[in-house]
């Protein structure tokens, strides 16, 4: 494992938070499904890796969990965003935007030079 996993973990966490912000409280399977869809099926990832990530977010206090009942009357554990999670999401979104714009300048073709 190593650095790649950490980066991946970080991005996954961000995706989870964003999903919960957009869709409200959701169970693990739902979150995994949603992430897969949003990424346009580009990310073929094991759903199992989601659960340690969810646990980490919960340990850090960004999401909270509760057993509930799904639409088809199935018991499932629902996760929802906390206030701290909301703030963290805003912060991370800002950071990402900044990183992207800086990088864009570097990686964009030079004007007037070849």
């Amino acid at each position: 494992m190593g650095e790649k996993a950490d980066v991946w973990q970080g991005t996954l966490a961000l995706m989870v938070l964003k999903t919960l912000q957009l869709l409200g409280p959701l169970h693990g399977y739902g979150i995994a499904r949603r992430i897969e869809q949003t990424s346009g099926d580009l990310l073929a990832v094991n759903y199992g890796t989601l659960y340690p990530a969810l646990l980490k977010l919960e340990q850090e206090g960004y999401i909270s969990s509760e057993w509930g009942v799904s639409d088809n009357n199935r018991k499932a554990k629902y996760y929802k965003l906390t206030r701290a999670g909301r703030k963290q999401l805003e912060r991370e979104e800002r950071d990402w935007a900044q990183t992207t714009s800086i990088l864009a300048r570097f990686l964009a073709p030079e004007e007037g030079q070849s």
Partner: protein
Amino acid sequence: MRNLRAWFLRLSGLFLKQRRDRDLDAEVRSHLQLHIEENLHVGMTPQQARREALMKLGGLEQTKELYRERRGLPLLETLVQDLRYGLRTLRKNTGFTSVAILTLALGIGANTAIFSVVNAVLLRSLPFKASERLVLVWNQGPAAAGGDRTPLAVSDLLDWRTQNRSFDEIGAFQNRSFNYVGGSSPEWIQAASVTANFFFLLGVQPELGRNLLPDDEHPGAQPVALLSDGFWRSRFASDPNVVGRSISLDGDSYVVIGVAPPHIDFPSKDAALWAILQFKPPTRRGPYFLTGIARLKNGVSLQAARAEVNTIKTSFPSGQHMINGQQFTFNVLPINEFIVGDVRFALLVLMAAVTLVLFIAAVNVANLMLVRSATRTKEMSLRAALGASRSRIIRQLLTESILLALAGGVIGVLLAAAGARLLLKLAPHTIPNLSQIGIDGRVLAWTALVSLLTGVFFGLAPAWHSARLSLDEALKEGGRATTESAAKRRWRSLLVVTELGLAVLLLISAGLLIKSFWRLQRVDSGVITERILTMQLQLRGPRYAKPQQLDTFYPRLLERIAALPGVRTATVSNSLPPDTTEYSDDFTIEGRPTDPALPPPIAYMIFVSPDYFRAFGIPLRRGRLFTASDSPGSQRVAIISETTARQFFPQEDPIGKRFNEKGEIVGIVADVKYTGLTEPIEPAIYEPLSQAHSWDVLLSVKTDVADPLSLSSAVRAELNSLDPELPLSKVGTLDYRFATAVAQPRFRTTLIALFAALALVLAVIGTYGVISYSVTQRTHEIGIRMALGAQAEGVLKLVLKQGALLAIAGVLLGLCGSFALTGLLRNLLFNVSATDWPTFGGVAVLLAGTALLACYVPARRATRIDPTVALRYE
């Protein structure tokens, strides 16, 4: 912040594992169900739906494992696992475990015991404020005047104070004794006379009452004293109203102004009180009786102070006193050095010895573990096959070693506690802080650390070896369960050779010390010490104020004691061999001007009653001894020792020469050691007590009985009848005084000999173990040899040769090491060279012999191998 929260939650995740696992199971199950339902909805068959869901999840067990790792603290969990497994394994192999623990307990216990002494003596901080800035100061004079610790004179103190630039505060003290009358009967007590700033220098405040003040120093002021805590408790029953009481010291009235806190054992453990030192402005340089104590200014280094202090000039320059010259040469010594300096080296040597013993013990256990690991190869390979990483296996094996070591440590502490009690009984009184030797927090922490390191040390190599196995080699069907790799065999031989070498080093060190001590005990002190009762008398008060009173007292006392049954002779003197003298002084020889180029004539002045030489069997070389006719009115006479004659009358006959203007030398006697058994003999001049008076004398009674102490009550009775108020002390025998003089060397020699013996036993056991195991390994091979016609003798030689190689290698290693290192012991050796060949040779033979003897048992076992059985042995 978030991370902290996460860590805490992970810590709590260690508990309630079962419930949390059930929770996780439920969540994973619900996940799969939801997924499967969706799949069914899309149109898959139930089997397809389930399979797709499981695949998408990415492995059920793996998901759970990843989750669990995130939930708890995996490191901690595996540690707990290792501990439980380790305990179980150790408990199953009771033989191995008990031998290992016992060996470790001996090694660690010895270490703990010595460290507890080091802790109490060297590491404990002194109860003084900023003791690193406190120094003691003496003059540096000729050996006969006190050498490096020649006392200061009052004028020296005052000169120093006036010209000082390096010290904040300068004081002085003198060890002395008083005839104390304050209770039922008079007794003499050890005490100190101190300047007013003494306690201020130490940074000590009295527990009760007030401190000494500068005004108390004035010669006309009421003399005052501070009691020690112990003295206050025992003589005054901790009376809170003791302040203001009057006590009589040597006939003078002192007022008690306070009580010091406990454990201020300075300048001596036995000081009962500190009395104020009052002195008038001096008119000459001498007498010399003070020890200076001072506090360095902040920022001034010891070297700077030493340099500065040697530029101070005396206000009484003249060529005619003991310490010539105008400028001082002071000896400035930090107080810590003073208190522990003598024993520090010996303690460090002991610490080194005990570390070597521990090393040998650890090596033995390492060998044991290597043997055991051979039987666990299958277990280790299985673990590796099941997915255990190498570091995991090593961690688990190390946990076992550390458990062993800690168990050994616990038993070692118990052994050390018992041993410490024994140590206290044997230890000489001169070791500082003796009463504080014990097992305290720091000692326990040290033991834990040592156990941990030992466990890692002897566990690491075997653990690393075990983990390095290749999978197929060990899981081979029908493979020999007890194959030993060549590397392992080499390791074990190397370890045993190291053990033997270290044992040789320790044995040689012990041998040298024993020889040295033996020689010390046989030093010719110049006297016959048997059957002599000794005690100390101090004549104080108005009864003995005038010298004439002494002249009547001493002869009467001696006459009465000599009349007692069992007494051959009685004598009093102001000095006693081997190391008690009163003082030394310069003397002049008629017709010889003081030549500043030559060393000044200084000798120890020994005042004796006429029977002194007879009582101690000191032979007369020339001239005559003192008689009763040498009285106060008659010609002053003196007898000199051979060394005095040799040094100051090399070409002429001293008899008849006049010295110190009025005296005449009438005899020469053989030398006697008065300055310690290991020191060279200093010049001595004897004078009769009737002419040179002393009020502090030692009474020596030469008896005919086996136990001189049995006569002590009779002697006491005679003393009492002459003067019921006269205190006497230090009742003992001359043999006892001699024994006390060598108490320290005896102590350390005994300890090192003990450790060396322990090392020998451990090393020999280790050798036995290796050879014995090797015989077991080679059973098959030996069976073949015997089947092919080898005789029992041949087999014996085979095994013994192996053992002999180890022994010789070990001995050679040890001899080389000793040759290089025993030079360090030079300070502790008396009359013995650090490379004393007989000792080296003797130890080599001893160790080789015992090692070979140890090999003999397994060798015999090898000869009794039945070839038919051995050939089937795998």
